[in-house]
């Protein structure tokens, strides 16, 4: 854009029209900075929960106002606010809030002095995620990605007295840096080929001969590969189990739900960059991801690790919608349907996964051995409420009807079936059946096994915040499972 005068440029830069659209990200960023300031003002530490709650609730509300009256593209078209991004933003804020609630009382004495820095993650991460899904510009996405990732790297190693936590942090950092470099390299190749980094302009160019040049294809491939790292798609999923297991569980929660959701929230709208010939490749990658995740999860004895592998499998399932979109010849209507399917899936996954990781975080407080398949034996006898909630989440992860997970899978497979990809759909459904194997194992261990003879009867009381958070997660899963139409109506 060129400007006639300084005044014009000035008016464009200071237009207040963009404010409602960027408000969620602004609230979250300000809250994150405020959290750091609390640390340096003597006596202000006590206001930590207030800042977190006020910021996240404020962001929820700011996103909510965008739902009915989205501002559309603002700031010279590098940022867009749509009903979808408003829902993403609300999910991110809600997910961060729930994960943060589970972190209350999770850490020991050693971590006390650094809790403000820890809590800052739960504000900067949703800020980054919101930027990621709202960005209409390859660089804007990168800013959001780094805003999300950099604090996550540090928080993955938050329990620094433990080797596995430090290992998780380092592993996540190195692979994240690699992914970022891959993404940036792809983006610069795209810029080289087309001369733009604006998503809208790239979309307008599709169909030109320019988009079949090797430089463009290499750029698109690298860009997508960089995002694949973040959503842990085969063959870039190797880091997931170690990082998820080593990180503190509340941090893992955010990693598993928000990062994946935000990356998909950007990846699906820009998947038009991939040529339609890549349909088979994407479908194959998705199925391989599901296979790798499910087979890995089957043999795990540590539930946290199992959930990590299951997260990989879920990423594969969601990736199928991109295959469906490409199979349709990049049809915009199918693209929107694919995005909505992924949005629903990830919304259900967010509540389910947050709930199950949160319960693990609670159990961990009694002793880390309680988060193994052996440790939860007969838990239903001691803590029926916890066991019931865990059962619900496992059923939802497995995709049993009446839970949110079922409709998530349903919508994804609908997209495939519409495009006539029956084989892929059947294979995907079979994978889901395999997945049931390990989810049901958890339920069997919870309810049907006798108490472990080594059990010492350790029972920490369920704290009120964690109880509320679990109830909210369970409610989310059930509402999405019983009234999916209500959620879809939000999207209009």
């Amino acid at each position: 854009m060129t400007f006639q005068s300084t005044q014009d440029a000035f008016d464009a830069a200071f237009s207040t029209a963009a404010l409602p659209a960027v408000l969620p990200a602004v609230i979250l960023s300000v809250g994150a900075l405020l959290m750091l300031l609390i640390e340096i003002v003597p006596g202000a530490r006590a206001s930590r929960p207030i800042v977190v709650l006020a910021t996240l609730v404020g962001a929820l509300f700011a996103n909510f106002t965008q739902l009915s009256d989205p501002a559309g593209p603002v700031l010279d078209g590098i940022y867009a606010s749509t009903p979808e991004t408003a829902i993403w933003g609300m999910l991110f804020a809600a997910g961060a809030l729930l994960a943060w609630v589970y972190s209350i009382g999770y850490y020991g004495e050693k971590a006390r002095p650094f809790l403000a820095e820890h809590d800052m993650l739960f504000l900067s991460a949703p800020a980054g995620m919101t930027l990621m899904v709202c960005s209409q510009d390859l660089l804007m996405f990168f800013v959001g990605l780094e805003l999300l990732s950099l604090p996550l790297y540090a928080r993955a190693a938050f329990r620094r007295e433990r080797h596995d936590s430090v290992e998780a942090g380092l592993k996540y950092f190195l692979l994240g840096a690699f992914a970022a470099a891959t993404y940036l390299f792809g983006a610069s190749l795209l810029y080289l080929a087309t001369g733009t980094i604006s998503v809208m302009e790239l979309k307008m160019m599709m169909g030109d001969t320019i988009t079949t040049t090797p430089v463009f294809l290499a750029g698109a491939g690298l860009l997508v590969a960089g995002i694949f790292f973040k959503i842990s798609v085969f063959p870039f999923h190797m880091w997931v189990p170690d990082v998820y297991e080593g990180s503190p569980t509340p941090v893992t929660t955010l990693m598993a739900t928000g990062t994946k959701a935000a990356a998909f929230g950007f990846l699906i709208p820009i998947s038009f960059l991939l040529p339609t010939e890549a349909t088979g490749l994407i479908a194959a990658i998705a199925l391989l991801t599901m296979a790798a995740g499910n087979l890995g999860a089957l043999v795990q004895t540590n539930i946290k690790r199992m959930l990590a592998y299951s997260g990989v499998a879920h990423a594969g399932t969601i990736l199928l919608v991109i295959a469906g979109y490409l199979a349709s010849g990049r049809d915009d209507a199918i693209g929107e349907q694919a995005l909505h399917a992924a949005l629903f899936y990830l919304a259900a996954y967010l509540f389910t996964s947050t709930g199950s990781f949160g319960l693990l975080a609670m159990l961990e407080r009694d002793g880390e051995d309680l988060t193994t398949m052996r440790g939860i034996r007969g838990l239903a006898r001691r803590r029926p409420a916890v066991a019931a909630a865990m059962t619900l989440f496992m059923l939802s992860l497995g995709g049993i009807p009446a839970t949110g997970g079922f409709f998530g899978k349903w919508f994804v497979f609908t997209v495939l079936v519409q495009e006539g990809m029956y084989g892929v759909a059947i294979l995907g459904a079979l994978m889901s059946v395999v997945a049931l194997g390990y989810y049901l194992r958890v339920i069997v261990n919870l309810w049907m096994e006798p108490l472990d003879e080594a059990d010492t009867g350790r029972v920490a009381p369920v704290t009120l915040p964690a109880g509320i958070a679990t109830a909210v997660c369970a409610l989310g899963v059930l509402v999405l499972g019983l009234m999916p139409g209500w959620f879809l109506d939000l999207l209009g």
Partner: protein
Amino acid sequence: MLNDYLPILIMVGAVVGFGIVNLVISELLGAKRRVVGKGQAYECGLAPKGDSRMRISIHFYLVAVLFILFDVESLLLLPWAISAKSLTAAGVGGTVFAEVTAFVVVLGLGLAYVWRKGGLTWDR
């Protein structure tokens, strides 16, 4: 534009030439009398102890990281510094200054944070 940088290019040639000539000339003309012990690292006349590829204080890394942060943020102020006068002449100096104020306040708060967290204290 490119003409402005032609002298720079020639200057680079001159400077690199100067460096190389100086390095090569003493390589060629200098004495070469290697004897045992001449290659020892100087440690005040004692035999060198161990290797000097050692771990160094984390403070140096911290200073480097802080430098990158503040340097980049300060650099962002330079375009404003150069154009502030013309912006004032165009009648928008005050508003731009308000924006810069916000930026400088964030920068200052960042410094305060690092300071308070002990990042600037050398010997702890």
